């Protein structure tokens, strides 16, 4: 079934109208010969002016605009399925169990996020002073839900609070699997913990870290988020986490299909464009 990846580009010929309008305005500027010569002198001075419009050129330009627009729209004759890949996309849900009063609330918020998006490879990391893999990267939503139902702060062997340990653990899991489209969602709250003595993971912005708080963030949280290159949101805004990840998954899926495998007709359109473009190289007759 034919499909168009970027249909808006089909409107590109409208840009040609803008170009024509700009060109026309320039024709009215001082210096255009029609304006330089008084009307009553035109019959004498411009007696031998010939009509210089070149119809073939207009036709060629119109065809070029249409074909370039179609080429940019990326028309495909058939859909290529993304190959089955094990490192295309994954998200890690890090749950901060360091503050007992809000631990259950954070687990519930994490469950809500996981439930809202099926079929996303997800791993769960629980963190206090140390970080633990609770569930490995899996699409088994039922298993994830079962584990989150029984997860409590009491299962953690140590107390304390180090968000960075959880983030480090999540980054390590994603790096180990070589995941392309990634997201780390940290469910936390209360007062922000100090960054402490731990090393920051490299290129934190590439890991797409989100800090999800129960309520709106204060200045201290904003400072911590800036330090981590993380985005800061409240539970209310949690759907945006999912939207962001979906976009990343789509981009990664597009890159996973090689241009050799695609059934788009872009290269045929370029081949059609080429002879028309060559018309732009016509010489003018020597004067």
């Amino acid at each position: 079934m034919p499909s168009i990846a970027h249909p808006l580009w089909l409107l590109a010929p409208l840009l040609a109208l803008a170009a024509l309008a700009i060109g026309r305005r320039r024709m009215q500027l001082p210096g255009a010969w029609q304006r330089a010569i008084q009307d009553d002198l035109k019959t004498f001075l411009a007696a031998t002016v010939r009509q210089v419009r070149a119809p073939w050129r207009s036709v060629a330009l119109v065809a070029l605009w249409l074909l370039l627009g179609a080429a940019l729209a990326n028309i495909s004759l058939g859909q290529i399925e993304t190959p089955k890949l094990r490192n295309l996309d994954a998200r890690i849900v890090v749950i901060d169990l360091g503050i007992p009063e809000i631990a259950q609330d954070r687990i519930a918020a994490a469950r809500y996020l996981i439930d809202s998006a099926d079929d996303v490879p997800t791993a769960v990391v629980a963190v206090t002073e140390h970080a633990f893999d609770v569930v490995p990267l899996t699409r088994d939503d039922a298993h994830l839900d079962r584990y989150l139902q029984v997860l409590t702060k009491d299962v953690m062997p140590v107390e304390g609070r180090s968000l960075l340990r959880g983030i480090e653990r999540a980054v390590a899991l994603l790096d180990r699997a070589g995941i392309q489209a990634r997201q780390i969602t940290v469910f936390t709250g209360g007062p922000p913990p100090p960054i402490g003595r731990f090393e920051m993971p490299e290129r934190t912005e590439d890991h797409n870290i989100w800090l999800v708080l129960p309520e709106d963030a204060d200045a201290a949280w904003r400072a911590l988020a800036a330090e981590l290159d993380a985005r800061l949101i409240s539970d209310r805004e949690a759907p945006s986490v999912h939207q962001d990840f979906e976009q990343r998954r789509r981009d990664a899926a597009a890159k996973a299909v090689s241009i050799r495998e695609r059934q788009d007709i872009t290269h045929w359109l370029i081949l059609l464009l080429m002879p028309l473009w060559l018309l732009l190289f016509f010489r003018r007759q020597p004067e």
Partner: protein
Amino acid sequence: MIELVRPWALLLLPLPFLAWRLLPAATPLSALALPERLATFLKTWDNTGVGIGISRQLPLLLAALGWCALVLALAAPVTKGDPLEEASGRDLLLALDLSASMEARDVELDGRRVDRFTAIKALAGAFIRGREGDRVGLIVFGEETYLVAPLTYDVQAVEGFLDEVTIGMPGRKTAIGNAIGLAIKTLEAQPASSRVLILLSDGDSNAGDLGPKSAAEFARDHHVTIHTIGFGKVAMQGYASETAGDEYAGLKEVAEITGGRHFLARTTDALRDVYAELDLLEPTEAAAGGRHAERDWVRELLILSLLMLSALTVIDRRRGRI
């Protein structure tokens, strides 16, 4: 690194030059009759290459640049990114018997006498590590049955979970039917082209609500192949009752019903051979990958052509050619 999908397209680069030389000349653009002095002056000014000279060459330059962008777009430059790992499409669950009889220290591992479970852990760990490309999960069973690791491509994590399990954790008896039931439920929840359960036990089923035979028939109906491994010496002291009679008859029947194979491993070396044979029976496909994330630059080049075309359209309009 940049790679061209159609490098032959670069041969088209000189075509505009040939068109310039070989195509017939077009009608002159303007033919305004000017007084001779004025015409001579304008020609002299043009020859200096200032003003009119540049503007005359501009459309040609724009067209040439647009042509180069088109040729490159046809050549389709791509930059390769990180490697992409293909999945085999096979879901493989490993079900390990953790009943009390696994405590028997009657096997040798690397010259040391160890209990059965220690030996199984060591060899199953190596087997799991080698399943790159398969989605692997881990079930442990005794009287109860637990899904310790859900189906995941992270074989290292499954190995980690295997390290953490201990004998007797799910009870001291053996409920093979229940383990098969949980495996079917887990495998059925995920789409897969092939579903395999490898069930390792040192005895016949003596607990559970679901008999192994019924469970195996259920597995066959759900297209789950079960390979069974009977491990350890039978009739050893303390656990003789579990494996008395036709040794591992139940396991053999389960494998036969589901189209799998039954293996008998009395020593760790034999178990190692069984895992090697299972690797042959269910080969991994990870090595066939070689795919990379790919970013092509065709659209950017076409946009460059479009910009050149816009400029040419403006100039043509300005000069009254269209």
